[in-house]
């Protein structure tokens, strides 16, 4: 097996907030091979977006990355790079698709220019070259009449089209890694699948690696090679996607699974809300952070934090003292 494209090793992101510290990401590790997809799943506030932004190097100014956390991209430790070198990766070798296409596009700039920007900046293309390439890209992401649409302002496009434009921007420089942070959350249900399929197709065609972030386990199913479930800044369960769906060990994962809206039957969707609130990341309990909301929690759970351990089966790891029985239902 070749060298992994991305290695995230014991990465933590701390945000000072007043006189306390918010542990937005807490010692997360994973590796991602070229052409593979990793799904990050969790509730909002579980640290998925912060993790993505840490990889991109786009954390808020006051965020800290305490040792020994490392991000290694294509063999290069990103921590030692200068800001400008880091910026040279963004858009060029790592692309990013943001959650809300309505706000991710500059409202006062024509979309053609927004697509062309990274190419002109990173690849040194001329205006004309970049424009031609932009039209190609728009076609590639499935926008008809690309030649005219390229001179539109974002508000003249529908939500789905805008997300396609955002994807085109992310793909402009043929990145090796695409980070898609909840790419479909803000879209109509009917459009969601189209966009996800588009991403999958593009990934295959271009042999990109992808990190697909979602709060919806359903989105991930069948689209990611591997899935990591995050809770309160930590990865609490990680496995190849099929394996995970087959044998969920964490009650939190199961709760997420139960919360999947049934696309085939929206009326019957069982939106099982997970009881309780997500924890205060600045004052995490000493033990398992899910313990206060866990039906099965015992004294040990609130005393000692469980480590991410392998269950010895097909790279399946989880962090729980009392995992669900294999095959059992919650």
């Amino acid at each position, binding site marked *: 097996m070749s060298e992994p494209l991305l290695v995230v090793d014991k990465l933590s992101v701390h945000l000072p907030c007043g006189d306390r510290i918010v542990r937005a990401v807490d010692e997360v590790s994973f590796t991602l091979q070229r052409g593979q997809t990793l799904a990050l799943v969790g509730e909002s506030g579980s640290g998925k977006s912060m993790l993505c932004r840490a990889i991109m190097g786009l954390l808020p100014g006051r965020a800290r990355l305490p040792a020994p956390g490392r991000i290694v991209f294509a063999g290069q430790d990103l921590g030692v790079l200068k800001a400008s070198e880091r910026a040279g990766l963004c*858009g060029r070798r790592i692309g990013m698709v*943001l959650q*809300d296409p309505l706000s*991710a596009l*500059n*409202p006062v700039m024509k979309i053609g220019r927004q697509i062309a*920007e990274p190419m002109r*900046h990173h690849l040194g293309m001329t205006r004309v070259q970049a424009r031609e390439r932009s039209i190609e890209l728009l076609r590639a992401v499935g926008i008809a009449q690309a030649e005219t649409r390229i001179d539109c302002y974002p508000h003249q496009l529908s939500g789905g089209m805008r997300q396609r434009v955002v994807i085109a921007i992310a793909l402009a420089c043929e990145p090796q890694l695409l980070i898609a942070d909840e790419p479909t959350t803000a879209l109509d249900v009917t459009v969601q699948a189209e966009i996800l399929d588009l991403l999958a197709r593009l990934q295959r065609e271009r042999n990109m690696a992808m990190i697909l972030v979602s709060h919806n386990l359903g989105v991930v199913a069948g689209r990611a090679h591997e899935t990591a479930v995050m809770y309160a800044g930590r990865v609490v369960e990680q496995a190849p996607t099929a394996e995970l769906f087959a044998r969920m060990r964490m009650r939190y994962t199961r709760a997420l699974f139960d919360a999947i809206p049934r696309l085939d039957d929206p009326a019957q969707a069982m939106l099982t809300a997970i009881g309780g609130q997500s924890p205060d990341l600045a004052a995490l309990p000493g033990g398992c952070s899910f313990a206060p909301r866990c039906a099965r929690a015992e004294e040990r759970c609130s005393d000692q934090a469980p480590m991410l351990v392998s269950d010895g089966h097909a790279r399946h790891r989880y962090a729980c003292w009392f995992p669900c029985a294999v095959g059992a239902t919650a």
Partner: protein
Amino acid sequence: MRFVGGKFLHLIVVILAVTALTFAILDLLPGSAAYAVAGANASAHDIAAIQEDLGLGDPALVRYGKWLAGVLRGDLGVSLVSGQPVAQAIASHLPATVELVVLAQLFTLLVAVPVGLLSAWRVDSRFDRFCSTLGFGLTSIPGFALAMVLVYFLALKLKWFPAVGYAPLSAGIWPNLKSLFLPAVSLALVEWVILMRVLRSELIATLQEDFILQARAKGLPAWNILLQHALRPSLFGSLTVFGLQVGNLIGGAVIVEQLFALPGVGRLLLAGIFAQDFAMVQGCVLLIAVAYVAINFLVDVGYGLLDPRVRRGGFARG
């Protein structure tokens, strides 16, 4: 088209209201220009004759009607004091005012925009704090005190600039700019703070937007993000403030004009009020009102240019 028509009507009504208000207010004043015109040695008979000469005998409404009719013919009347046509007097005072406005606002922009950008980019940095503290300081002193300090150091001590006086453009670009430098800086010292604050706070809000994150994810350099992406959507408040500032300076920079002995519209207006030269006051008020209204219109047009989404009618203030 209906929108433009409606707005035009609004502007006309505002101008009419302002000039009518001026007539009404001036009519409230005791006395008349005749006394100011006649000097100390005139008899009551002389005063009555002058009153007649100046056409001050008619009721205010009649005079307003006559004046309005004159304006429509392009005739603003003549100064009650000097007999000079008002339009001519205003025209001779406009260059100094316009140049002062342009230069002051240029300085304002030159300082406010870079400082606003840098402050917003690194909120709470030492630079940001320094600039906002400086701004608070500058807006805490009356403008004439600032101008006094400037004159004392830059004109009297260092002799870099003339202390007073206006050199018209015909005297050469360099003397002209030198003569307007201190007055313009005196004005800009306060104005940039206000503009910078508005720009900074709007920029901070814009920089939180996802499209800025997206731009950063493209790996674009900071200056590119600030100038190409963040600045333009953050200019709405600044444009409004900028318009108000320009409007205020036309006829409103009295103190600076007085301190630096500039022949500006503000001084013409002040002298007109003191001499009760109503024709002159009325002419100046008309100019100021028209300028205000025109600037407002331009600001509205500016909103449209800034943001392609603004295509709706009504005043963008709504």
